[in-house]
């Protein structure tokens, strides 16, 4: 359904609530203990040091008929690290404990916001009471939002089972279960609540214990189900400036759609090999449903098999794609070497998360840049690109496919846990406006007496791609060094020197097709450049915008192509007096920039599993200009 959307100017976006704030609304039946939940959430939020504003909204009746829309009770809280003036216009997160609560509150939720529903309450009777003709969880009523369906009723009953409460009493603990989940999502402390419950139920310790158990169970659910803590975090989406058709899109959706589009633009079927890992699995889930677009998905036995099968598919003439997160990408490293050596197209998506090892699987980080650019055995360069936002991931995925097939190379596409799960409004692209890059397989057999040479190259240095099944072009490829001319095994020192240089030069040639970079805010020659990549785009952009509004001489330079870098980047960076590089790692892009351009790029690092706050970047801008 088309609805009008308020157009937000940069001024307006600055003048309204602090963007680091989040608006959460709890809604349920008046008997569900919503106000209690909201009140306790407020308490824990205040204890966490956030400023906040709340808006309790409950029916006049003490106990309106159960399950009806007029019996819905709601509690809204807006909290954040900066000053909060209002309870927030629209919730980013809605917790709806029954269909009526959903019905009354859903339209208020921001597009792309998160709706958590207790699906255990979505029976025919409750749906009818709420006035739903069809179950909104089954059709596209909620398409504009992210929806998390949990059977909170059952999960609560399970959690409090040991305390021998009656069914009705047990279900009263639902609010505490929900609160536990909310506390997990926003990283709030449970201890004050536990103390409060013990005091409140001092005369009925079994009720205290049951409520605490429900609270802990909700919290544990968030943690063990690896629900991302990023769902609700307010992010700075691209301001919807241009008129047109919009929809919401998450990063995993955008990447999946972009890969499908990229394969189509290349004129190839896509083969996707994946292995379950948080937060990358959702790409496999999305693609598995798109078979009519020529997509074959393969859940492999491990990360290595996932990339190996993708390489096999590329050898056979499909566009091979694999996806994972840091630890899985590490496992794929050897196979990337094979794809580089055999010069086969391949797209590798890395949804970065906090590391090393299992690290922080549900939290976001940008700490795999070294791994992407440098992290392989041998001299093994491959192009690396990074998405800055959920919507941007669509174009980045297409770009990864283009480079892979035009340069016969594996390409790494970097995204992160934040982009993967976050949603933002996205102007639906006009697919006709994308330039196709159709692949032409080599199919002409050599002249009599000539041998097949699969390593013949074009002007870009990309080798020919010959599909097995093509008559007269039988050939063998492999991981052993090839003769630069014939493609046969050749260990000669001069040949390895030549081939190593050739592979590096080929990847550098990708820069010929990258547009020159310009600051996305501010001018060349300003006093300070804030250089970013990936999902730090939002906070850097807002911080630089504010600094510009305060008359500071600053610019925002944001990289999509991490390797090779845009050809003019060195010249651009040298126009600034100072360069700072905020990134969610210990200073990785900073190293790359220093290495490539000998510029004094200063690191601004954050590895807290949380995105940068605008205020944090504003502070380092002020500091750098002082």
């Amino acid at each position: 359904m088309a609805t009008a959307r308020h157009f937000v100017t940069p001024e307006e976006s600055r003048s309204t609530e602090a963007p680091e704030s989040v608006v959460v609304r709890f809604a349920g039946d008046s008997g569900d203990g919503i106000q209690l939940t909201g009140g306790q959430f407020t308490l824990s939020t205040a204890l966490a040091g956030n400023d906040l504003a709340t808006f309790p909204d409950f029916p006049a009746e003490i106990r309106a008929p159960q399950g009806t829309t007029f019996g819905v009770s709601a509690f809204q809280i807006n909290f954040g690290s900066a000053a909060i003036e209002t309870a927030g216009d629209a919730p980013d997160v809605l917790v709806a404990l029954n269909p009526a609560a959903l019905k009354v509150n859903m339209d208020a939720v921001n597009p792309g916001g998160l709706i958590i529903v207790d699906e255990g309450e979505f029976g025919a009777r409750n749906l009818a009471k709420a006035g739903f003709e069809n179950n909104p969880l089954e059709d596209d009523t909620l398409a504009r939002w992210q929806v998390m369906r949990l059977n909170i009723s059952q999960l609560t009953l399970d959690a409090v089972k040991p305390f021998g409460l009656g069914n009705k009493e047990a279900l009263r603990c639902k609010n505490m279960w929900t609160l536990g989940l909310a506390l997990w999502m926003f990283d709030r402390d449970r201890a004050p609540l536990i103390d409060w419950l013990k005091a409140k139920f001092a005369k009925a310790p079994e009720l205290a214990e049951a409520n605490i158990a429900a609270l802990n169970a909700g919290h544990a659910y968030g943690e063990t189900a690896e629900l991302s803590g990023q769902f609700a975090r307010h992010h700075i989406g691209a301001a919807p400036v241009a008129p047109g058709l919009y929809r919401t899109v998450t990063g995993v959706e955008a990447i999946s759609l972009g890969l499908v589009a990229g394969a189509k633009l290349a004129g190839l079927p896509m083969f996707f090999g994946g292995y379950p890992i948080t937060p990358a699995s959702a790409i496999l889930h999305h693609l598995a449903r798109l078979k009519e677009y020529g997509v074959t998905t393969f859940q492999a036995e491990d990360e290595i098999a996932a990339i190996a099968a993708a390489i096999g598919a590329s050898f056979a003439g499909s566009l091979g794609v694999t996806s994972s997160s840091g630890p899985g990408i590490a496992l794929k490293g050897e196979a990337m070497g094979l794809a580089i050596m055999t010069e086969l197209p391949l797209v590798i998506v890395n949804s970065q998360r906090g590391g090393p090892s299992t690290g922080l699987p549900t939290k976001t980080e940008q700490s795999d840049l070294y791994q992407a650019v440098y992290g392989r055995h041998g001299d093994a360069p491959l192009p690396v690109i990074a998405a800055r936002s959920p919507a941007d991931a669509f174009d980045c995925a297409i770009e990864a496919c283009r480079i892979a097939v035009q340069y016969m190379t594996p390409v790494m596409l970097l995204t992160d846990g934040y982009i993967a799960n976050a949603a933002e409004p996205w102007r639906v692209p006009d697919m006709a406006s994308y330039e196709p890059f159709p692949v032409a397989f080599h199919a002409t057999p050599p002249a009599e007496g000539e041998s097949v040479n699969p390593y013949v190259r074009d002007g870009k240095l990309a080798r020919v791609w010959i599909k097995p099944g093509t008559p007269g072009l039988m050939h063998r490829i492999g991981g052993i060094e090839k003769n630069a001319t014939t493609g046969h095994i050749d260990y000669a020192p001069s040949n390895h020197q030549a081939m190593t240089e050739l592979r590096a030069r080929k990847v550098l040639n990708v820069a010929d097709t990258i547009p020159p970079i310009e600051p996305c805010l501010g001018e060349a020659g300003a006093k300070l450049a804030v250089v970013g990549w990936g999902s730090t785009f939002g906070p850097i952009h807002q911080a630089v915008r504010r600094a510009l509004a305060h008359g500071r001489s600053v610019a925002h330079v944001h990289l999509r192509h991490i390797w090779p870098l845009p050809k003019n980047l060195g010249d651009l960076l040298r126009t600034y007096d100072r360069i700072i590089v905020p990134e969610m790692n210990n200073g990785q892009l900073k190293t790359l920039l220093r290495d490539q351009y000998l510029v004094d790029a200063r690191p601004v690092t954050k590895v807290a599993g949380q995105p940068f706050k605008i205020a944090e970047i504003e502070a380092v801008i002020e500091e750098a200009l002082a």
Partner: protein
Amino acid sequence: MNEMTKLTAKDFASDQEVRWCPGCGDYAILKAVQRTMPELGADPARTVFVSGIGCSSRFPYYMETYGFHTIHGRAPAIATGVKLANPDLDVWIITGDGDALSIGGNHTMHLLRRNLNCQILLFNNEIYGLTKGQYSPTSRVGTRSPSTPFGSVDRPVRPCAFALGSGARFVARAIDVSKQLPEVLKAAHAHQGAAFVEIFQNCIVYNDDVFAPFTARENSGKQLWLKAGEPMLFDNGTKGLTLDREALNLKVVEVADGDWQSAGVIVHDPTNRAVAHMLIDMPIGSFPMALGVIYDDPRPTFESAVLRQNAEAAAGKAADLQALVSRGQTWEVEKEPRKA
């Protein structure tokens, strides 16, 4: 291939110089495969040899077909991608005991359970040859090698038992130099699904004569060549296998004057999985080595199931990219941007 262009073994030999050690069993296997291909009516352009790493894995370079020499242990996974991307290709996997059962054991297991339609030729020489002679997962206890100077202590895996346990629907054994190898290869090729063939391959440098207990000329009586529908006879028909009903196991019996029926010798039924397990596990010495097609009972292949599901899921749906990106609830922004 039409009759006019009948191919020969030579047509399947590439122009590359074969570089195995003189006397290596790999030469005999290469010749057998090159000789068998024309008899299968194989089209070189639609044939793909995929290998991992090891002496055996150089094999694809010597075949005038498509070939992919990949990385250690991963040939089954790469072959899976090749076959799913183009099921018309005839895929052969060439691997060794270390490649398939140590570093690549996981992939071998999953390829077999999924039942990808391909042939897996595992050259078992019970040693790591290319890395200069370390003991392998199929080496017998006590194998002395550079890495086990006092003898290996871990028990070996039996490749065919591993295959059968992983769900393989075709399991066969052969010997590098045996005349029967082409027949086994043909049977493997005829099987629709993953066809697992263990080939005892003599490593003349690091593990010479390790299979002599049944391959040496004087021990040829220890070879039991199985044939569907025929009695399990060996040692020139003087001995056979029967079922020990007490122990529920196989037993060697003497056969007098060819009267195997009265000796109770059983007839080979390649679809009998229980007997296949027993044949594979017979200890060499008191028992013969079971060779030939031990088990052959096809089931639908992985790629056919994937293809069918892809087709069914796509049926009646248009692949309209514009519709795809426009899915879900959309809204229109009509206002022109205000100037900031």
